[in-house]
């Protein structure tokens, strides 16, 4: 659970940040440019961290199923529906022979007029628990991100303010952005 992923919800955007290192055996850094961002639809993306194999397998499975929905039904799933579908799959797989050790953050922008809140952010952990919040994080940075978020997040944040908050969190982790 070393690799960190962070999500911040702003006025009309979602900020998704991820740790690009892949470490092994607690001491070895294998990769500096890991991609943990998976596109679910035109307006929705997912960050996934955890067991490397599980992460890719589960994220691609969910992503492709959401694309399939669009092909079959001709309409795109809202971020809320994407997140619930993902959580459903996670909870289902947990109670079967093949469970995935993957923590996820799903962020998206709803293009439907009837949705009041357009920018939507959700966090799902490997046990299938889902929450919707303004600042979410998985991994070691969780301890810092949520605290900084509590202090600095406010309604109708601009992108600069969001990036500023992100910089502070990353500084706490002692990493370079």
């Amino acid at each position, binding site marked *: 659970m070393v690799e960190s992923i962070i999500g911040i919800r702003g006025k009309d955007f979602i900020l998704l940040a991820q740790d690009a290192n892949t470490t092994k055996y607690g001491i070895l850094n294998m990769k500096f440019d890991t991609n943990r961002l998976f596109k679910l639809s035109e307006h929705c993306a997912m960050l996934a961290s955890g067991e490397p194999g599980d992460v890719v397998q589960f994220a691609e499975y969910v992503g492709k199923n959401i694309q399939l929905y669009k092909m079959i039904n001709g309409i795109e799933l809202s971020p*809320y529906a994407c997140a619930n579908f993902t959580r459903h799959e996670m909870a289902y797989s947990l109670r079967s022979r093949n469970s995935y050790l993957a923590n996820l953050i799903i962020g998206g922008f709803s293009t439907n007029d009837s949705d009041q809140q357009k920018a939507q952010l959700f966090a799902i952990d490997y046990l299938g628990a889902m929450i919707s919040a303004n600042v979410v994080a998985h991994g070691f940075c969780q301890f810092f991100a949520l605290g900084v978020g509590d202090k600095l997040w406010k309604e109708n944040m601009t992108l600069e303010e969001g990036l500023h908050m992100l910089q502070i969190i990353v500084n706490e982790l002692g990493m370079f952005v």
Partner: protein
Amino acid sequence: MARRYDTRATIFSPEGRLYQVEYALEAISHAGASLGILAENGVVLCGEKRNISPLLDDVKYSEKIYKIHEDLCCSVSGITSDANILINELRMIGQRYLLTYQEPAPIEYIVSRLCNIKQAYTQFGGKRPFGVSFLYMGWDKHYGYQLYQSDPSGNYGGWKATCVGHNSQTAISILKQEYKIGETTLQDALRLAIRVFSKTLDTTKLTAEKIEIAVLEHDDKSNKTTIRMLNEQELQQLIKQYEDEQSKLETERQKQQGQSSQQQTTTSGTTSKDKK
């Protein structure tokens, strides 16, 4: 000639027809009619009731119109027992979607899934097709108010106004002439429905106990859909409105006829005068 190829539902005839499906459609054309009309601010579904015996127990259910989920309602034409199975399946489809995605299913999704099931009975399994046609009315956030029709073959289509069941061809030709695309309000749709039914029902006089009407409206502000059945009073009011209009038209027509016959007598009078 057809007899050889119609015992099994799942085979083609030499002319490339599926006889069992056609026979199912034939069964539906004898059943009570269902009529659906899409309006700018809602949808209307009407059903012609066939079971109107005074001995029937007054159970609080509808004979033809069923609610599938909060935003979707359907009307049945055909074998009622077949319909009950499919209605159950429709409700399950809606709920399974709600369980997975936590939001109401798009209308076309539900219709399309049921039609896939109906199609399976025309291709494999050796079972007969369902002898039911449905008219669905619903609202969803993607396409607003919608009206769909599905039949035993598993085909479905979106409609602005349509009819299935007994005398449906007559009804559809009336709808083609009288339905105004883009200008029909809910009130217009209700009046049109009564007009169509009074012409296609077998009875000479339309009464409130012979039809059922359900109306679906969606309130954008509260984001809630209401589906309600019109009660006997409202139905009688609509029928009375229609009958008043008809009698007015009749008296006007008679007046015009009277005028034209008067003109005829005056002209004949002048010619006889001339002859003298």
